[in-house]
């Protein structure tokens, strides 16, 4: 009941597919309250991740996460690049030299990712950003991990919580990012960054079969 390097690579590949399949939805969400490039940016970023993972064949979970981070940072362009990039970088640092990840390690990685995103974007919960999805996901992951659940169970609970965290951004007025320029008009729309967080966590959770 642990994630190996191969599982982490499979998880990243699943994320590449999920982002491509949901690109249009992300474009639509971002068009409503941002500049409409989030879907394109995320797709370009994860296609670069796919390419790099094939090129470098990383040998540890941390190396996979770091390759993902640097690919996103180098290719996304919009705010999602440095934000998701920082999330994966911090997760890589938290993974350290580990060869495999258990449920508690996955929860710790998610916590590190959240801390990184919060520091980089200076956003708090309730600002209508990806933090709203990621913060509740981390709390759910930590609760599930404390019960001794394996990595996939932890990711599943994180993904489900991220869905509700993302949905809760709908009535909020944005206080960070491009959407904040809209003020009250940003209310009534799902935040694209929060939606992306939920998409990625679902993709990660679906990669491990019954582990």
């Amino acid at each position, binding site marked *: 009941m642990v994630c190996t390097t191969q599982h982490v690579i499979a998880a990243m590949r699943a994320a590449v597919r999920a982002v491509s399949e949901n690109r249009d939805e992300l474009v639509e969400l971002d068009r409503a309250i941002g500049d409409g*490039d989030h879907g394109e*940016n995320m797709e370009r970023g994860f296609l670069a991740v796919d390419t790099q993972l094939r090129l470098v064949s990383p040998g540890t979970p941390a190396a996979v996460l770091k390759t993902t981070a640097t690919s996103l*940072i*180098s290719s996304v*362009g*919009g*705010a999602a*690049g*440095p*934000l998701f*990039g*920082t999330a994966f970088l911090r997760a890589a640092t938290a993974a350290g030299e580990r060869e495999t990840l258990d449920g508690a390690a996955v929860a710790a990685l998610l916590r590190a990712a959240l801390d990184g995103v919060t520091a*980089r*974007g200076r956003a708090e919960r309730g600002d209508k950003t990806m933090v709203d999805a990621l913060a509740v996901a981390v709390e759910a992951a930590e609760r599930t991990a404390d019960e001794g659940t394996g990595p996939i169970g932890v990711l599943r609970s994180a993904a489900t919580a991220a869905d509700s965290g993302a949905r809760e951004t709908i009535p909020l007025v944005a206080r*960070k*990012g*491009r959407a904040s320029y809209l003020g009250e008009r940003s209310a009534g729309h799902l935040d694209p960054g929060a939606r992306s967080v939920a998409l990625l966590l679902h993709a990660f959770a679906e990669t491990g079969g019954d582990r």
Partner: protein
Amino acid sequence: MRVGLVVVSHSASLSEGVVEVVGQMAPDVRVNAAGGLPGGGTGTDFEATSAALAASDTGSGVVLLYDLGSARMTAELAVEALADPNTAVVAEAPLVEGAVAAAVAAQGGQGLEAVVEAAERATGAEEPEGGEAVSTEGLSPEAYRAESELILANEVGLHARPAALLARTLTGVEAAVTVSCGENSADARSVLGVMGLGARKGDRISLRATGPEAELALRRITELVERNFDE
């Protein structure tokens, strides 16, 4: 060597424009632009920012200025990726005013911390009365006060380059200097403030200096004006 600068922007032309303005005022400062995406769209590019950071590094440190939110994040990431992240600082400053203030400070040979401070103090607004704090303790008023009037004879008046020269000539001089033209006054060290006076050829400017080296400050400015700002 002088502190270098990097201008991080969502737009290539915006970042290059800032570099152009800055280059005119601080010819010996290494300033590089990192604007737009590699394909030509708007956005910020980590690789370009890292490359600009390397190109601006003289060994004395680099100050990065940015336009909007995600440019700050990209700038911060580029700094964190350096072998020694302490050699570069992302300044929390308005892009144009901050870049100009930082460049003038760097041109004057100031260190990394002082250049960051110059950028972050720049608001584009007029300095409060009295300008920067200079200790006048233990001095009689006569000892630290000086005034004079000059007529501008150079072609462009107190335009960008002369204003930058004015600020530079006061580097290291212990005196606060106010320049006035007609109704308007500005801190002589604020390039944008001095430009904002709109003083042209033939205009009369008055100078008021306070501080231990008030006389020296006025002497330097007078020489500069008499040399027609080396035009």
